[in-house]
């Protein structure tokens, strides 16, 4: 007699899987990777390769020998963490620092909490902040774009946000603006900055792809970008000499990379649409506060990490709208 399979309903599935989602995000990052390689050449290639390989390696080693579970290093999440980590490092950073960043990202950011799905903070950002605090000089000397064959010996300069922060001590915005690249260059990515965050265009193409594949929803990126735009816009209207215009804030620093890829990380972002909007607006406001009133020129990474910490709270108190009103029962 034939043995049938029995299982509880439902008996059909979408065919979506964790690796498919992760590789979907990786594909959407390819345009940005291409632009970065175009501007930063060999350095970007080395940093990206080392970062991805070290994330995979550390995930494998930790799962195999420390957690003693079946390694899942090829499910795409380690590759994605590695890629995102590389994207927020300068392309001229020594490769051993990248490896330390990979260890911090996977080891501290992900595995200490129990692996995929359990971490509170975005692993790539944990890696970046770890490096930022440990090696402040290496992390803030940005290579000038267009040096194909230079790696650690590349000529360096300040980011537009750095220029703005320092310049505002004695000059007005109007006087600083000629020193920063044109808006077109900012949009295309021809500026100094972390290797993957420079090109707004490539990142937006990636976002469209992810929205099309339904990997992410619009809530988080739109609420972050929108709140940054509105907040900086208000400040700019109040005093255009003291505060840069909103478009400058949108196109510089890691804002777009953060809004599209870091803040939308499934594990560390809220579960409901309403929660996502609150989270996004919060990140936007904190980012602007750090950028304009804080000690650092850039604040996206800290803002995201702070709101990663708020995510469990948002999940607890922000509930989806339930179907049907409550009625009293006997």
């Amino acid at each position, binding site marked *: 007699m034939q043995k*049938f399979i029995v299982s509880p*309903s439902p008996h059909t599935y979408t065919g979506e899987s964790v690796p498919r989602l992760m590789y979907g995000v990786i594909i959407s990052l390819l345009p940005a990777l291409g632009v970065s390689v175009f501007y930063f050449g060999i350095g970007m290639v080395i940093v990206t390769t080392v970062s991805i390989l070290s994330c995979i390696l550390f995930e494998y080693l930790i799962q195999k020998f420390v957690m003693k579970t079946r390694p899942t290093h090829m499910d795409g999440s380690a590759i994605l963490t590695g890629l995102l980590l590389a994207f927020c490092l300068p392309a001229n950073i020594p490769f051993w620092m990248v490896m330390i960043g990979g260890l911090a990202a996977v080891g501290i950011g992900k595995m200490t909490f129990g692996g995929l799905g359990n971490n509170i903070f975005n692993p790539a950002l944990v890696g970046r902040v770890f490096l930022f605090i440990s090696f402040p000089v290496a992390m803030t000397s940005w290579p000038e774009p267009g040096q194909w064959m230079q790696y650690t010996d590349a000529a360096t300069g300040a980011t537009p946000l750095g220029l703005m922060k320092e310049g505002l001590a004695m000059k007005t915005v109007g006087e600083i603006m000629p020193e920063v690249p044109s808006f077109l260059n900012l949009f295309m990515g021809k500026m100094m900055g972390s290797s993957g965050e420079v090109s707004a265009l490539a990142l937006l193409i990636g976002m469209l792809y992810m929205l099309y594949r339904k990997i992410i929803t619009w809530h988080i990126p739109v609420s972050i970008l929108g709140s940054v735009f509105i907040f900086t816009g208000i400040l700019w209207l109040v005093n255009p000499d003291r505060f840069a215009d909103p478009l400058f804030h949108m196109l510089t620093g890691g804002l777009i990379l953060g809004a599209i890829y870091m803040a939308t990380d499934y594990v560390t972002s809220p579960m409901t649409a309403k929660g996502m909007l609150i989270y996004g607006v919060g990140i936007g406001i904190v980012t602007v506060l750090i950028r304009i009133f804080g000690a650092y020129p850039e604040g996206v990474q800290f803002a995201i990490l702070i709101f990663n910490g708020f995510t469990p709270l948002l999940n607890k108190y922000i509930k989806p709208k339930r179907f049907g*009103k409550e009625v009293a029962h006997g």
Partner: protein
Amino acid sequence: MSLKSFSRGGVHPAEHKLSSGNAIQVLPPPEVVVIPVSQHLGAPSKVMVNRGDEVIVGQLIAQSEGFVSTNIHSSVSGKVLKVDNFSDSSGYRRMAVQIQVEGDQWIDTIDRSDDLVKNTVLTSEDIRKKILDAGIVGLGGATFPTHVKLMVPKGKKAEYLIVNGVECEPYLTSDHALMMEKSDELLAGIHLMMKGLGVEKAILGIENNKPDAIQKMQKMTEGTSVRVQGLKVKYPQGGEKQLVQALLKREVPSGGLPIDVGVVVFNVGTVYAAYDAVMKNRPLIDRIVTVTGKSLSNPSNFQVRIGTPVSYLVEKAGGLPEDTAKVINGGPMMGKALSSLDVPVVKGSSGILLIREQEARRKEVQPCIRCTRCVGVCPMGLEPYLLMTLAEKGMYERLEQEKVMDCIECGSCSYTCPSARPLLDYIRLGKAEVGKIMRTRKAV
């Protein structure tokens, strides 16, 4: 025509309506039928026959016990072989009557002609009585006794009759076939039910993947108080609460029934059976069952006697294909997997679906990555990921606060989960446990 749909959540699984457009085939009775006495929600009926008794088609063999219960009639003529426990679709053994079929003799009060009877002098009281006598239950799958639904509780008022022709489950086509072939009877049935309920307005909701049925019914209902409304294809639109919301923008309260917002919902199959019962004196002895599957040679819509073994149906549809690994009683989203073909068709069986080996297994369970898909698709606005964790950890109080009892078990969450997590398995478990706790609390 503008299409409507419910507002929250929902998924769209591949439709695979393989047997769509196939005419309803009337199957002759098999050699032996097994008629369970508990085919409906509520108290099992009391058996009225003994071993060795001769019965004929339409004869009462088990009587309603209590208000939420119903009658059961012999679907064949022949001799009672046994009144004993038989395996039901879950393998557990329950009381049933086994009948050896001999000839096909019907009770003579049943009008077996195809003549359409449209008008009736019966009062709503009479209609309810006839429906109770005929053992009509909800044929959409919930099998709730129909006469109970026709009794509008005191202090509430029915305003609309909603007829459910949605058939949102993939693969199933029995309601579609019914709407195409028995549209006159169906319409007469709708008017009958309106009379039984005392309502002036009726809406027939049909999903857009059955444009022929929408067109046909629309043409027929022109100028009457019955409105046909096309609906966007979205699962679980056939759920009562979803359908009411899609058609009338009214939300049935948590823990409530459609009647709380002035609506009563019946499946098209139920309405058709009610027509037969009232106008033709024909008790519920058969139903339309879709037998389908990708490898099956003849996916069909059969009109079969209650109690017919599933194996007989599969045989008539071309035999069990080699690569069948799973047999489902119902559709792929909410149906129940059978462990054997040796179970009878009951009042609630809407389809038999054969699933091939390559699609039969679940994927390996991965950790939850909090992608929010389950929250997004839940038509009841719940958080399946949270409910699953709470049920797994046995935190039943929290589970009740998180409205686990609102879950309609549509399976959209498990369907959509990229980590293949068994969300509904645990939510169902949580519902069972919370239900137990609530019952003991009520009893105290």
